[in-house]
């Protein structure tokens, strides 16, 4: 893998300290190879350093052993003597490094199999050593726990829950008595069809047909998906953007500055309006007339691309948030839910709009049934750059052949996959639609496509390069997604029809402009998907959505 060397250049991987570099140039990789023999993998897959199975290592200076809990034990990589190190008061390991001629700075943490530089007082990374730890750990997890403990009989099996990192379970919120009173006194019950019409509506709240205003199914289909995007819906239904307040504010602003900004349309206000009418309980189809003005380039009576409309909506929402001077942290977060996955090329910070780039592979010639996972695999597989596309490596000062691999750096709350269903043939100089069927899962695990996963499989566990510039992002915990909306297209490139399938309360509904009908899951699975909307599993509250219906 030629590119691994060249990842150093971007500062993603810490530079080796001068002591480690000196050590390597003096001794080569031999000491690390010897260490490899002492690598033992503990039952749960963590590595440690022991010369033999029952060794009780202790500090050569103060006979502290691992049982005395406090200090960590380190073995000098040069001469294998074990010393304790507890920062910063007492460090026999550092004393050892000082007392010896240079070359004894590098030590290895016995219980963690991590390299430490006693002079820098910092953890250091050696590619060869880390690679051997990864290989040992992988080999150990491949065999059964009994085998790896040297045939010792295992009395208790390892419970599955211990192997996997478990997250705290979701607990639904229940109002306490005080809150119950508050809710009861301050809220008015939505009328709904049930009482006014005397008919018990089987449809969940918020399902309302949208009138076609003349070839506007592209807009309706995307609106339906947006209306049922859980974070977005929660944001607007909790009155976070009140159109009356916003209007007042804009009027005042307009008086201060100039009259032109008064007439400016606010996307969030229209969102608020459409959320209000759709969740009002009224089931007669709604006409989203004001929506056109948000996509000026699409406002005509012609057929349009749903994805294009979707992208202009996203841009509008983002712009809206950025221009809002008094945005609160929460608002910013809620607005960020919109699917802007960021993909990476090698280690450079190149953000791609996921939507455009990801799915170019459906057109690839492959046998069998195309699946969404297959597309993602293809998207994230390494690709060797040709000799005409060499990257300049700052370490070697020459252009090097490199490997390019895309991966997803941070998962958004909501992911939208756009399937490339049209292709342009330069040979015949015409475009055509690809009607190929694509299989998509209802639950999707995105973890294999994350940068952290891909880097970890290459470099081992110790390098968490992404946490640095992504302060609160813990991407690993939220890689499971649930499908909640599918926009499908039938017909040809220039004339066709968009229909949205919504998953509410684990039941599928077909939204075909003004008509909303309940359909079976198989109908959805068989549909020709154009855009698929996934939301992080923790936002897909099946149980709480039941409460909304009742």
């Amino acid at each position, binding site marked *: 893998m030629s590119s691994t060397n060249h990842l150093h250049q971007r500062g993603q991987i810490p530079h080796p300290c001068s002591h480690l570099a000196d050590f390597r140039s003096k001794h080569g990789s031999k000491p690390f190879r010897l260490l490899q023999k002492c690598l033992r993998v503990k039952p749960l897959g963590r590595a440690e350093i022991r010369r033999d199975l029952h060794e*009780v290592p202790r500090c050569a200076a103060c006979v502290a052993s691992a049982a005395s809990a406090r200090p960590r034990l380190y073995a000098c990589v040069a001469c294998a003597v074990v010393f304790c190190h507890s920062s910063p008061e007492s460090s026999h390991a550092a004393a050892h490094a000082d007392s010896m001629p240079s070359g004894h700075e590098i030590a290895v943490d016995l219980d963690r199999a991590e390299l430490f530089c006693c002079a820098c*007082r910092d953890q250091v990374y050696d590619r060869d050593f880390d690679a051997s730890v990864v290989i040992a750990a992988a080999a150990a997890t491949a065999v059964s726990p009994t085998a790896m403990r040297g045939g010792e009989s295992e009395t*208790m099996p*390892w419970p599955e829950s211990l192997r996997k990192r478990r997250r705290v379970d979701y607990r639904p919120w229940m109002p306490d008595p005080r809150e119950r009173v508050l809710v009861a006194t301050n809220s008015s019950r939505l009328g709904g069809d049930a009482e006014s019409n005397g008919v018990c509506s089987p449809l969940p709240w918020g399902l309302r047909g949208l009138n076609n205003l003349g070839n506007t199914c592209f807009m309706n289909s995307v609106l339906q998906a947006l209306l049922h995007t859980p974070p977005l819906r929660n944001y607007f239904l909790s009155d976070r953007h009140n159109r009356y307040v916003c209007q007042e504010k804009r009027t005042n602003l307009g008086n201060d500055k100039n009259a032109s900004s008064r007439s400016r349309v606010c996307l969030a206000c229209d969102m608020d309006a459409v959320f209000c009418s759709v969740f009002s309980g009224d089931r007669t189809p709604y006409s989203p007339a004001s929506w056109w003005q948000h996509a000026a380039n699409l406002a005509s009576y012609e057929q349009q691309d749903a994805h294009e409309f979707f992208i202009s909506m996203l841009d509008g929402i983002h712009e809206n948030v950025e221009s809002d001077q008094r945005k609160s942290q929460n608002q910013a977060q809620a607005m960020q839910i919109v699917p802007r996955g960021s993909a990476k090329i090698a280690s450079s910070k190149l953000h791609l709009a996921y939507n455009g780039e990801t799915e170019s592979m459906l057109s690839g010639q492959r046998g069998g049934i195309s699946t969404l996972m297959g597309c993602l695999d293809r998207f994230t597989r390494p690709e060797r750059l040709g000799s005409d596309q060499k990257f300049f490596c700052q370490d070697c000062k020459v252009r090097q052949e490199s490997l390019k691999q895309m991966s997803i750096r941070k998962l958004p709350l909501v992911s939208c996959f756009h399937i490339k269903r049209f292709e342009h043939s330069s040979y015949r100089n015409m475009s055509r639609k690809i009607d190929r069927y694509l299989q998509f899962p209802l639950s999707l695990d995105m973890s294999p496509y994350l940068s952290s996963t891909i880097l970890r499989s290459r470099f081992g566990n110790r390098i968490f390069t992404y946490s640095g510039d992504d302060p609160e992002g813990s991407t690993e915990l939220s890689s499971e997604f649930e499908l909640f909306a599918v926009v499908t297209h039938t017909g040809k490139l220039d004339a066709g029809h968009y229909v949205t399938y919504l998953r509410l309360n684990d039941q599928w509904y077909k939204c075909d402009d003004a008509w909303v009908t309940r359909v079976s899951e198989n109908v959805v699975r068989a549909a020709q998907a154009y855009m698929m909307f996934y939301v992080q599993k923790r936002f897909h509250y099946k149980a709480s959505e039941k409460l909304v219906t009742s």
Partner: protein
Amino acid sequence: MRGSINRPPTPDAEEDRGQDLTLQEIINIKLIESGEKERLKELLRERLIECGWTDEMKALCRAFTRKKGRNNVTVDDLVHVITPKGRASVPDSVKAELLQRIRSFLVSAAL
């Protein structure tokens, strides 16, 4: 000479080791050999994640790193600064649970 006849068939090293081990060390070895130590560690990790301690420590480390500048921080600095706070903020319930597990292990191991 007679002593050697009665000696149990354990290797020398094993016996030598037994002589100068403290009780703490013996318990530690038992814990390791039975695999209980790893289980306890995993349990502890899980509990600390659940109660938010891990996130709290992460936030402290990040704040410290940000204050000092990301290139001026060593692992040692972090350990030195964060350890006292970390030790102080482990919830008592977690400590109690771990202690209980160790106690019942000692009983079952009949030490």
